[in-house]
């Protein structure tokens, strides 16, 4: 299959370049660990729960979703550097699948996000977090879908604006309300009604609720399949849209 072959070619190149520079692992893990160590202890009293384990059950899934959203949204910067170097144009004169140009890159982002998530989950185990393996894998699937969507979105926008100066404020403007309206850092259970109403329109809020249910061990909760479905649909839409930008982008 041409698409698979092309995607794996692009993926391998991007992964190799990423591994050549392993600093990202340190940077990518350092910040979330700081949150685990310095922010999470505030949660037990704030959330009015009995144990640390319960607090982490609420906080860790939110933190992981946050990483997936932000990690994805800022991938576009790398693409702008590639545009400038002429690498994208060089790919576009070959018969390579345009979808593969996007998927190879986005899958690299998904894999690196999952690697980050695994490290953070392992660390959280030290803080008495307990989660069933099956549920954890489903939660990782949710994270993968989120990061696939946000990275594809970021690549598509990068191809449209073609400059870091435009991309940075744009991404920050998008990310901030998304973050606040998703109950990522604190659940919205205690939020006023109007805020909850607005948050219902934020797809990431569904993703966070679903991931939390999985960490709670509540596999049957409707938030789980709802979150997965919403993220899957949006991920496919974002991928198709961004691949079209790869096909038609004019310098």
């Amino acid at each position, binding site marked *: 299959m041409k698409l698979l072959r092309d995607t794996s*070619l692009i993926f391998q190149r991007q992964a190799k*370049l990423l591994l050549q*520079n392993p600093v990202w692992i340190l940077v990518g893990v350092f910040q979330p660990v700081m949150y685990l160590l310095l922010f999470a202890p505030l949660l037990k009293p704030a959330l009015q729960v009995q144990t640390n384990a319960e607090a982490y059950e609420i906080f860790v899934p939110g933190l992981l979703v946050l990483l997936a959203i932000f990690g994805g949204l800022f991938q576009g910067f790398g693409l702008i550097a590639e545009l400038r*170097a*002429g690498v994208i144009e*060089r790919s576009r*004169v*070959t*018969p*390579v699948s345009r979808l593969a140009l996007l998927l190879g890159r986005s899958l690299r982002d998904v894999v690196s996000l999952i690697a980050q998530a695994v490290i953070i989950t392992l660390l959280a185990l030290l803080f008495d977090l307990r989660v069933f393996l099956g549920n954890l894998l489903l939660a990782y699937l949710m994270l993968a879908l989120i990061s696939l969507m946000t990275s594809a979105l970021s690549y598509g926008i990068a191809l449209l604006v073609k400059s870091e100066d435009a991309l940075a404020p744009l991404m920050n403007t998008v990310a901030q309300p998304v973050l606040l309206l998703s109950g990522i850092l604190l659940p919205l259970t205690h939020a006023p009604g109007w805020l909850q109403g607005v948050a219902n329109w934020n797809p990431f809020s569904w993703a966070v609720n679903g991931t939390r249910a999985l960490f709670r061990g509540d596999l049957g909760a409707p938030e789980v399949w709802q979150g997965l479905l919403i993220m899957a649909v949006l991920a496919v839409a974002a991928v198709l849209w961004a691949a079209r930008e790869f096909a038609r982008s004019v310098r």
Partner: protein
Amino acid sequence: MIETRGLRKSFTSRQGREKKKVEAVRGVDLDVAEGEIFGFLGPNGAGKTTTLRMLATLIEPDGGSATIAGADLLKDPGEVRRRIGYVAQGGSTWDDSTAREELVLQARLYGIGKAAAHKRAQAVLDGFQLSEYADRKCKTYSGGQRRRVDIALGIIHEPKVVFLDEPTTGLDPQSRAHMWEEVRRLRAEGMTVFITTHYLDEADALCDRISIMDNGAIVASGTPAELKREISGDVVRVGLAMDAVAPAASALSAYKIETYDDSVRLYVEDGAVAIPQILRALDAAGVPLGTIELHRPSLDDVFLTKTGRSLRES
């Protein structure tokens, strides 16, 4: 090998609230024969790069038709991509990759198998004398080396036609001469080479045929010799003090004349006969003469007569 008829492209540019339609390419006809080195000349903004990018399938034409290496550009761009190579002006290599990695990847993007891709990469590295640096990162290369990698990337799949967008711009004279050799070698290997350039001496020395583009249209085509022959006779350039240009122009109004800041250029039948007459006319009008020189028309003169300006000023 390349045949275009009425190729067109316009862009909408936005200036404040007003949308303006810019006709970048307004009907281009080109005929490039197999095995030619074809030069495409024109000032910046003439539509050269837009034409080139259309031929390389990077942007879609608004209208017209084109057949490249036997494939229809509008109906089957995928097939065109397989048969052509394209080397962009601004480079195409990634700082942290090595030339070998880039070449193998590029070959594989063209559908070549892994073992064959490695073989091809080694062959072009040898051909372009890059083997020595093949496994160093591209950011360590000199400008000339990096440009050779760009061209190697463009021909790794042995295309029938290769498009080179200003391949020598920004190179030092030695690297430029080296690049000319490479271009001739590509032709010797059976490729048709389509090259854009700013340098008229380059077009003159390197290209079998050229087309001059101005304002989105082709204004002249032919071999460099043919084009120069079209301008019959000689060119006499008279160097003058700045304030002497206007009086000199009126004293010499009997000739076909172009005026510049510090000189006038006269197009005459026979330079040897004309020079004494010119000197006498200037003397009679009391215009102090700076220098006087006689030369055969160059491509620059062709350019000047066809587009009304010198390529150097544009």
